[in-house]
């Protein structure tokens, strides 16, 4: 496993009130994303454990783009990756944001 960590400044904080959300599954070409609301509103951390080694630059681009485009402030995001493509990663991250912003029942 290769471990990567990012700590980014986020312009917008995540909406909603849920404490956490999880999406995806760890399988070949897939990943799970756990989102926890545990940082200051302008901070987003992303920790990645990936089965595919040597893709640090791709991850760097994907997570920076995600934090720039989505409301990710305040979130501690943890990823277990089974070798997903960048578009799948971006999709799961967006799903994760939607899920943590869902109204609580």
């Amino acid at each position, binding site marked *: 496993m290769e471990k990567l960590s990012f700590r980014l400044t986020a312009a917008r904080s995540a909406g909603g009130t849920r404490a956490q959300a*999880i999406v995806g599954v*760890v399988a070949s070409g897939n990943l799970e994303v756990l989102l926890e609301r545990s940082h200051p509103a302008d901070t987003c951390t992303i920790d990645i454990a990936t089965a595919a080694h040597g893709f640090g630059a791709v991850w760097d681009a994907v997570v920076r783009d995600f934090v720039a485009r989505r409301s990710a402030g305040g979130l501690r995001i943890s990823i277990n990756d089974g070798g997903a493509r960048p578009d799948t990663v971006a999709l799961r991250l967006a799903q994760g944001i939607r899920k943590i912003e869902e109204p609580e029942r």
Partner: protein
Amino acid sequence: MTAVTANANSLSWYEASARQRIDALVDAGSFAEFIGPELREISPHLAIFDLPEQFDDGIVIGRGRLDGAPVLVAAQEGRFMGGAFGEVHGAKLTGLLRAARALEQDVLILFDTGGVRLQEANAGELAIAEIMRAVIEARRAGVNVIGLIGGRAGCYGGGSLIAGTCSRLIVSEQGRLSVSGPEVIETNKGIEEFDSRDRALVWRTMGGKHRYLIGGADTFVDDEALAFREAAINALKAGRRCDVTVLEAEQTRLERRLQRFGAAEDAVEIWERLGIDQPTEIPGLPTGAFLRAAANRENADDAR
């Protein structure tokens, strides 16, 4: 009491994730998870093999309500490591069943498993044994343990033995139930014994329709989350003993199956002996027609 509602959207049980299945099965908004992913109780053994971990180790457990009644629920994720039982995965289910006995609450197990996880085979095998014992102890305390089988990974290996300890089993056509998987039989005994690439053979030997016809499962449902929910609600109303009378009835039932079908070479022969008019048509029948054709099936009422 507030109105009980299901999550009403159509959802393929086979395609759904473990978490989606639970959400669709129990009353909307009623599920609370135990040892959730935020606790990061991952397998301590996968790192030895440099394999990726999952925060819930491939099984989601917790409590919820089913048509208003409190239930404990476990759902395996068949896409992570084939839904296989390792140390953590198994211990979560063992703990849930021990809680069920103490709290006298019914349990729903959503099987989706290839069996024991080879990378932690000894721990997985022992987990299966511990779970089976915990199921029987819970049942003897009056608890219903219902198994639901219709996931991608089927219900194989040790998972199929756990299923055999449940008080009722609900299965869809997609739900395969078998000890040795097709590849395992072919690898060990040759392609003449079992051609694992012959998908029609796999389905008619191990699939939900055959299991329902011979009494290996109690309820046959469409591959729909709501159908599983309705069947689970009904299953909880059935008997819940596990005493010598039930096991004696099971003994008679299983002896009868061997006598009646023991010489059959293929599932179609068994279906013919059950008096089904056009046995070769069974795999293609939609649920309604299949259930009509299955009127004279073997059943396991009070004998499981």
